[in-house]
């Protein structure tokens, strides 16, 4: 639209400067899509009226993102990305920089809360089927944000250069070392040295303060643009665009995001900040879960701490990694065989059956043991850990239920989701502990549950008895 054709902006609320403000906004709007952005994303973005508690976490994730960026900018003013000075510079921030301690605790606590909020946000998606058509891309963009967040947290965790920073980075970079053929070169390329060293710290700093945050911001923008294109899901999992108010043409069950949800989210932000500040002021280490005690010891390349564990938000995947032992490979091979049999018995096309059988045979061939492994169990552990984090991408296509929301799903799906949440927590808890035989066995059991939730989803969601979805949103 040519600038001259645009309507002048009028400010409706009373005030002495209304005329001047309206004229200024009109001037801007003719040169920049100010009012259309305002309308499309806030004042006339119609969101379902039945959002509940679970819908706070999207806006809270944005709040924490801003908090992390702002505190990060100020930490960067005092931090030194140098193996000889990094640890001391963090202590300098904590002790000598005015207000440094609170900025640093806001940042370190913010990291953990980022994951709390994002995990709850993802769980909301699981509850109400927010990943289903037409929101597959929102889900995929969200998963990319989650991966970026994990990378951001991992790179940032090296920066204090404590024992956990050092050995955590050592273990994670060595995961790449396990990739057949290119692994060792890749690991050296990532580290920039043969062990985690000054070069590694310096580049992780670069990734942490600029590369990943830029990616993250772009992905967040894309996530929201995709959301506003198709519209928000809701606890009933039905499309509000189906029933429109005949007078206005807006969804009958929709309300403008602003002012209704901006006000609701502000309340959520206040409640969140109360909890957040209690942690920042009274328990910033959170019993060793948010800041691990071993990280108050400077990095020592010659000595691994007696007990090492990643920060809590990585521990479910870490447990999966540790669960893959030589003995467990036979269970995995049997699992693959069973899965192929399931596909063979239920798939319609012969092509699908054959493809599944061939893929299964290849997988089992590479798993065979125990005398001679074609691919080491270590590699399988790394691979399954990766698959464990990436498998969420497939959810939009794994869920075959005729309904989206848990409210109308049947008992099997509800039980499966409950089991999945339990396995996520158990794996997460085990990942913080040291290894014993019993714990490994438990981790192996829950690793199977974790993967079964996803891999069997196409079958149990179709089998399950669902309730009919309502025409209009309830409550």
């Amino acid at each position, binding site marked *: 639209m040519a600038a001259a054709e645009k309507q002048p902006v009028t400010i409706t609320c009373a005030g002495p400067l209304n005329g001047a403000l309206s004229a200024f906004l009109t001037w801007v709007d003719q040169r920049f899509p100010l009012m259309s952005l305002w309308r499309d994303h806030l004042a006339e973005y119609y969101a379902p009226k039945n959002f509940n508690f679970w819908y706070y976490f999207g806006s809270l994730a944005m709040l924490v993102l801003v908090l992390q960026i702002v505190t990060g900018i100020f930490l960067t003013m005092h931090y030194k990305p140098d193996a000889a000075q990094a640890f001391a510079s963090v202590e300098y921030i904590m002790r000598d920089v005015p207000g440094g301690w609170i900025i640093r605790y806001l940042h370190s606590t913010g990291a953990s809360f980022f994951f709390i909020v994002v995990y709850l946000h993802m769980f909301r998606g699981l509850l109400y089927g927010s990943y289903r058509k037409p929101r597959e891309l929102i889900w995929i963009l969200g998963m990319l944000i989650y991966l970026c967040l994990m990378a951001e947290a991992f790179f940032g965790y090296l920066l204090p250069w404590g024992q956990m920073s050092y050995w955590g980075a050592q273990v994670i970079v060595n995961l790449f070392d396990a990739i057949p053929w290119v692994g060792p070169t890749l690991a050296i390329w990532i580290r920039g040295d043969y062990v985690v060293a000054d070069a590694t710290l310096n580049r992780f700093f670069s990734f942490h303060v600029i590369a990943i945050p830029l990616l993250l911001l772009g992905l967040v923008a894309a996530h929201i643009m995709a959301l506003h294109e198709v519209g928000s899901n809701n606890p009933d999992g039905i499309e509000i665009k189906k029933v429109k108010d005949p007078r206005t043409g807006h969804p009958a069950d929709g309300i403008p995001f602003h002012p209704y949800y901006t006000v609701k989210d502000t309340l959520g932000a206040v409640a969140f900040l109360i909890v957040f500040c209690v942690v920042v002021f009274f328990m910033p280490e959170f019993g060793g879960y948010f800041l691990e005690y071993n990280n108050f010891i400077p990095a020592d390349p010659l000595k691994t701490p007696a007990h090492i564990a990643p920060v809590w938000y990585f521990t479910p995947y870490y447990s999966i990694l*540790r669960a893959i032992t030589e003995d467990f490979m036979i269970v995995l091979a049997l699992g693959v065989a069973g899965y192929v049999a399931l596909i063979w018995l239920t798939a319609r096309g012969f092509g699908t059956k054959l493809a599944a059988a061939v893929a299964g045979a290849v997988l089992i061939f590479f798993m065979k043991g125990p005398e001679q492994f074609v691919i080491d169990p270590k590699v399988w552990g790394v691979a399954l850990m990766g698959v464990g984090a990436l498998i969420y991408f497939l959810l939009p296509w794994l869920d075959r239920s005729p309904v989206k929301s848990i409210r109308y799903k049947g008992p099997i799906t509800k039980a499966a989701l409950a089991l999945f949440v339990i396995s996520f927590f158990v794996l997460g808890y085990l990942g913080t502990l040291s290894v014993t035989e019993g714990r490994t066995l438990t981790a192996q059991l829950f690793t199977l549950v974790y993967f079964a939730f996803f891999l069997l989803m196409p079958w149990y969601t179709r089998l399950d008895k669902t309730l009919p979805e309502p025409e209009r949103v309830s409550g």
Partner: protein
Amino acid sequence: MADKELDPGKRRFLVAATSVAGGIAGAGAAVPFVASMLPSERAKAAGAPVEADIGSLSPGEMMRVEWRGKPVWIVRRTREMQESVKASDNKVADPKSERHRELTPDYARNELRSIKPEFLVVVGICTHLGCSPVDKFKAQPEAFDADWKGGFYCPCHGSLFDLAGRVYKNKPAPDNLPVPPHAYLSESRILIGEGGKGA
């Protein structure tokens, strides 16, 4: 020019040719950036051999030396410790160090994985994911193994190694601890990082 008819074939060809040329130039431009992340010349030069004085090491003791930023352990094994290695032959995954032969120099490819039976020299980095295992030399029941014969325990993922750095079966670590190239300069001095042939 203006009245010339559009030749779609020519346009397609030119667009494709420009895209391919641009793509190649882009990939070429990425080379220095990717290469800049490889170890620098300074990092490569830091891999010089180091000397260790083992004269003051008493039987049953271990010392750590830093070589290429990694811990190298030197253990002076008592007679019992050497016996425990022989006793664990059936517990370890690769008793003869034949998997990944580059992890063990030929002059140390024996049951005790050493040049002299008394001295074990290994890189103290777990072959699983690079943690440094802890020494648990005493043969006594442990939480991780009720029939523990003495060796090393990795706190990260529970891998076990015997007193010759050989990995136990059914543990996350796939390989024995690497024996670095090393040679005896005298009775009490070891050079780590360079090994003579059959020294």
